[in-house]
């Protein structure tokens, strides 16, 4: 895929994620929006690493990919915890 298309797509993903993070009130949608931003960052890292022939960039992209499920699980745990507190009247 051409580099400029990757940069455009990455910027669009980060922008859509940011809008979702600021605009939506639903907890799960906010988590998904944050994951979209991580996806955009991953794409930019991979594209830049490919263009510059730096494999280290792909290593960092792998690290960011590893953050995806962690962010989702931690966000869900925090959301569940908040709901259970609401249920107890705290």
């Amino acid at each position, binding site marked *: 895929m051409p580099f400029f298309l990757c940069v455009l797509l990455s910027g669009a993903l980060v922008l859509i994620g940011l809008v979702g993070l600021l605009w939506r009130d639903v907890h799960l949608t906010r988590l998904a929006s944050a994951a*979209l931003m991580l*996806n955009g960052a*991953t794409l930019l890292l991979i594209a830049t690493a490919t263009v510059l022939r730096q494999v280290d960039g792909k290593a960092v992209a792998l690290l960011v990919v590893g953050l995806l499920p962690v962010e989702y699980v931690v966000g869900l745990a925090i959301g569940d915890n908040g709901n259970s507190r609401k249920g107890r009247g705290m």
Partner: protein
Amino acid sequence: MESLDLSVLSYALLALATLASALVVLFARRAVYASTALGLNTLLLAAISLTLSAGLVAAALAMIGMSTVLVSLILGDADRPCQVPDVGNERPRRSRGVVATGIGLVFWIGVGGVLLVGNPPGHRGATEVVASAGADDTVALAAALFGPCRLGVVIISLIVLTVLVGSRLSRGEH
């Protein structure tokens, strides 16, 4: 790894599909739709990574995307709309557990990233492995990831994260 060479139309279609799935995540009325669209977005990103000859990252993205789609479809309750908080409720205050988890995540990406890219004594970065041995990108990444020093850092980061999340959950139970 050889990169996939596709036509311009294929690239445009791939980019449009990625954008469409992101917009579905943004405007989805039900949680299961948002999760499924996010999984599809991750799968499409894996396909894009393949065209950029990033095989290992593509494999990780494909596994995460596939598991997200499967979990959403199997566990998702399609009849239940997204939970919307009541109007007038105050936002919950950030507890110490959330801050601690955030610090754990910063530790994970910061220290882990620096040690992956940097060169601790006796270890070489992935780019140097490629330059010196003419190795494939995937082999170089594996060599960088599974060096003793870096693997230790990754394991310690995971333990820190697990402890933080565990303490957060246990505090919620009591």
